[in-house]
């Protein structure tokens, strides 16, 4: 029971951080991107990974039992936390680069964001799915 609550908390934390981050980006970039096309594409590349997290958590919560899955080791959780931090840091670095001028052109933003999203986001999402039992093994628990 304790483990299940911890997982639920972790999942909600990830989703809340993501919602807050994407909302922040939407507001922050609104006053810094000239072309509406670039603005929409930049926000769009945040969304696939964002959608998976929200979908997984909402689905798990919706089952009425909270997120569940296989037993996982502490090492796995530590690794996952590190990846999550790296993922957040990657996106933070992109925004910081844009603010300081290292990324000089807004045309590079969608590519830079999708770089972080597809590398860390893809990695992290795979582990996230494992943790919350969306794999086939979950059915046998």
């Amino acid at each position, binding site marked *: 029971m304790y483990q299940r609550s911890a997982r639920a908390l972790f999942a909600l934390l990830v989703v809340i951080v993501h919602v807050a981050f994407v909302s922040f980006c939407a507001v922050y970039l609104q006053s810094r*991107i000239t072309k509406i096309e670039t603005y929409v594409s930049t926000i769009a590349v945040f969304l696939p990974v964002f959608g998976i997290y929200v979908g997984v958590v909402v689905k798990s919560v919706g089952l009425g039992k909270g997120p569940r899955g296989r037993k996982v080791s502490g090492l796995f959780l530590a690794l996952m936390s590190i990846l999550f931090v790296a993922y957040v840091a990657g996106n933070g670095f992109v925004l910081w680069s844009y603010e300081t001028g*290292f990324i*000089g*052109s*807004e045309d*590079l933003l969608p590519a830079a964001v999708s770089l972080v999203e597809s590398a860390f986001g893809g990695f992290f999402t795979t582990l996230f799915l494992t943790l919350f039992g969306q794999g086939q093994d979950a059915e046998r628990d």
Partner: protein
Amino acid sequence: MPDLSIRPFAAALCLALPSCGIAQSLSDITPFDPAVMHRTARYCERHWNEIYDDPRLSELCVGSFLCGDGGCETGTVIAVVARSREEEMRTLLARLPVEDMTPCDPGDPYERQYVDPLGGDGAPFGFNGQTEKLEGREVVPYCGKTLPGYEADVVVALRQMGGDDIAAIRRGIGAGAMPAQLRLTAPQFAAIRDAGALPLRAPLVAALETATGLPCETTARQTCAVTAERGRLKARLLFPDGALTGRAGHWEEAYLELYPTNPSGDLYELSVDMPITAIRRWPGDRRKPVDGFQSLDRDGGFAAFRQGLMSAVSDALEDGRIGGE
């Protein structure tokens, strides 16, 4: 990633280069004689209208002052010279107000048409009646840039030197391709041209300060640099928060060039080019952005901004301080 870090250096290099390539000093320029120039221009007009009939003048004038429906392009001259007199022409060019004159480049889309002026299907545009005398000889075509306002003088000087060995013209432009212009009188044209556009600096700076409501100076918060360079007055502008066209939340960048032109006959104009207009959405209280601008073409806001500057400059011209009696 390495590509990103090179950007600032490349930008700095681009800014530095045009000033490196200029070796000739302004003191070499032949003195402007308004009387002579006015006269040759008028004779050429008459010749064009077949009122004035003198074979000597027709040789001197055709294609020199009347190039096309849109007049002659500013700052460009084409000369086809017999190889035997090429060296002599280069010596003369060193004394003329020429910025750069080299054999035409086949890789350049505009210069390509002059690379083979005698072959192919007839003479290139503007060379009718000029290249026939060079038929069957070994020639070298030269494409050049003069200081603004000196195109006709350079063409006449080349024709006087070369006789039958040189065909020189100004390059024509089609109708409707002109940048914005103000009409000048001949004395105003002469005064502005001979002082290297410097007399326009004070009126332009005053007009900029009125338009933006800010002092025209370059600081960490804005760029407003007005310089006279090689006969042109150049203004580099970068202002936050819509000071130029009123786009709130945007930085606006514009680059202006003012120079005297003589598109045809005794028509004198002040050309006001604005080749760069760009904006970038970026908070006005932040550090001045250097790149990432989106360029705007034919933007109504910038056109109105230029219109305002031109009317202020026009007022300054009318009060008679420039080229007045």
